[in-house]
């Protein structure tokens, strides 16, 4: 049995192993060293939640604390990538995307295309996302859909420690800009992770559970919620198939369509706001390409078209729950 580590440790290990393998891999961002290297400090926090802890001393000079200026250091990381480095820049909360959006969507995402394929931009931008942390409306959003919309970006949303390590190593080795999004509520999740280095390819969905009644497509933290729901639904005689796309761009459309062709029913679970979301994107994909297989309308279980609330009670209501997924799956199973 492989050893178990947390999602957070898996990300740290991926960074450590890639920094050891390739001297061009650097880590930069606000507080990623977190005081390490200051006079009298042996090691320090390593990012706001300690994800990069320990890397500063193992890889001297290659973990760079930056000023609180996302527009500056994200641009610098993209420029360094064009010049042969493999920077992993940490945006801290994905909600801060707004101040460096030009660097990401109008520069990094376009270089390969606009320079006739001659430019490569092997940058990874890591950020944490998601609700459930009592961090209020400006630190709780799920913005993977915005990046997914932009051609030229690859977007990764790992749901467990094994995928987090393998997908981050793949992200660092990829020659295009990759947005790597970590759900903050998953950092403490434990799972079996090999000690060796390994990669998980982009655009390959995981079939988390097999079933023949209802297809549930879920990503990030919602995979756990879908698993809770499917275990309950099984007791009621409804057998769910859970598909975790793992990357929203590229998206493994074949695995989703093949599953819906088998089950005839689709529930999409997406923590994001409902409009122009991954849920609506996948619902559209299935409606257009597997309409003839559908036995019931597609159901989307999402957050609301409202900021994520700060109140504990309201925030819990905002996040898609197992109960809501169960209700959606039952409604499509019982539809006549």
């Amino acid at each position, binding site marked *: *049995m*492989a050893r178990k580590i947390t999602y957070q440790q898996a990300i740290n290990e991926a960074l450590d192993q890639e920094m050891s393998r390739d001297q061009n891999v650097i880590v930069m961002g606000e507080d990623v060293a977190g005081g390490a290297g200051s006079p009298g400090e042996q090691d320090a926090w390593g990012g706001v939640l300690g994800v990069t802890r320990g890397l500063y001393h193992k890889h001297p000079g290659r973990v760079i604390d930056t000023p609180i200026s996302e527009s500056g250091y994200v641009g610098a990381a993209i420029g360094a990538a064009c010049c042969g480095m493999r920077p992993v820049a940490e945006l801290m909360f994905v909600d801060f995307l707004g101040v460096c959006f030009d660097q990401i969507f109008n520069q990094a995402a376009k270089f390969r295309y606009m320079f006739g394929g001659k430019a490569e931009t092997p940058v990874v931008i890591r950020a944490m996302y998601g609700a459930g942390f009592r961090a209020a409306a400006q630190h709780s959003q799920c913005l993977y859909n915005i990046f997914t919309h932009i051609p030229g970006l690859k977007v990764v949303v790992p749901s467990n420690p*094994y995928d987090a390590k*393998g997908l981050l190593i793949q992200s660092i080795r990829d020659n295009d800009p990759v947005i790597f999004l970590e759900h903050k509520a998953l950092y403490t999740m434990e799972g079996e992770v*090999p000690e*060796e*280095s*390994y*990669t*998980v*390819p982009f655009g*390959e969905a*995981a*079939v988390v559970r*097999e079933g023949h009644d209802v297809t549930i497509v879920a990503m990030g933290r919602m995979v756990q919620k879908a698993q809770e729901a499917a275990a309950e639904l*099984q007791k009621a005689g409804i*057998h769910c198939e859970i598909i975790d796309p793992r990357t929203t761009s590229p998206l493994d459309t074949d695995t989703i369509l093949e599953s819906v062709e088998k089950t005839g029913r689709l529930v999409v679970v997406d923590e994001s706001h409902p409009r122009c979301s991954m849920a609506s994107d996948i619902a559209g994909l299935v409606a257009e390409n597997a309409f003839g297989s559908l036995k019931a309308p597609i159901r989307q279980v999402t957050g609301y078209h409202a900021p994520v609330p700060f109140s504990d009670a309201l925030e819990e209501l905002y996040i898609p729950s197992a109960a809501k997924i169960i209700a959606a799956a039952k409604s499509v199973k019982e539809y006549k």
Partner: protein
Amino acid sequence: MSDIHTITMPKWGLSMQEGKVNGWLKQVGDAIEKGQEIVEVESEKIAGAVEAGAAGVLRRQLAGEEDVLPVGGLLGVIADASVSDADIDAFVADFQASFKPAEGDAEDQGPTPQKIEVNGHKLRYLKRGEGGEPMVLIHGFGGDLNNWLFNHEALAADREVYALDLPGHGESTKDVGEGTLEALADTVAAFMDAVGVDAAHLVGHSMGGAVSLTVATRHPQRVRSLSLIGSAGLGEEINTGYIEGFVSAANRNALKPLLGDLFADTSLVTRQLVDDLLKYKRLEGVGAALGTLSGNLFANGRQNSVMADRLSGLGKPVLVIWGEEDRIIPVAHAQAVSGRVQVEVFGNRGHMVQMEAANDVNRAIARFVG
């Protein structure tokens, strides 16, 4: 009440917590002999049949098709026809009232694999059982110690039995060095030194059979007997399409049809089996290890080490076990050595005969090693 016997959800492998009923092979009222297969169940990794632990009549089926039960949960009841229904109902009620599924992580239950340093290689192994003449189980190309999921515990009933991951496999070091049968055999001998086993019964599957034969040639004093299952090293033919495909397959769709070649019943290839093998193949160093081994052992579409003519000269008891429908290494290799050594061929079984006919294979080996 002692005449009432339970059929419970088995535990196949360390990670198994629950299993699903695939279907009953015997119906209520059927007479049952000890050792007969009663019900088919599947874990997330593998499907198989549960055997009757005692003779009698199948009196109750307590789980239906597609029901999921925790390990140890009550599937059915066997009892003599003379036991009253009331006694059986009381027994079942009693069992269900006192049954508690095992809690917590699988690590808390039973033996767990260890790692040991051997000649600069880190090797993973799992030891079960105590005392007796030791046995070592050696998996095949691309396999690992989990290939013995259905065999390890049964074989360890009256002896210590070690299953190891060869270099390049499972959770052992991925560096295979020269990647020859000789190097692998020397690693097995060094492993035996490291765990303090002087001489052992070697049980090898496929490439592991060729490794066992090579141990017997190079380190004869370390080998008490050889049980060779669907073994390499007994003839030239091998399904190189499988070997090459396995080495190059990069995703589920490429790998899944290949794995069907391992079993007579291709429905035994579960999603979990495919995913586990993909995870293994994606580890750094595995591609190189498998490439080196297949290049040395199976170059030019044939097996490059044929040791069948050495069998009689080894001076060791040899048992050869094969699945008649083996699509990786032909059963003709077993038939060719029959007469010189003991041969058992199981009909309607494939290359992974130790999984497909686990109970038969376990009995054959137990009888053979005595």
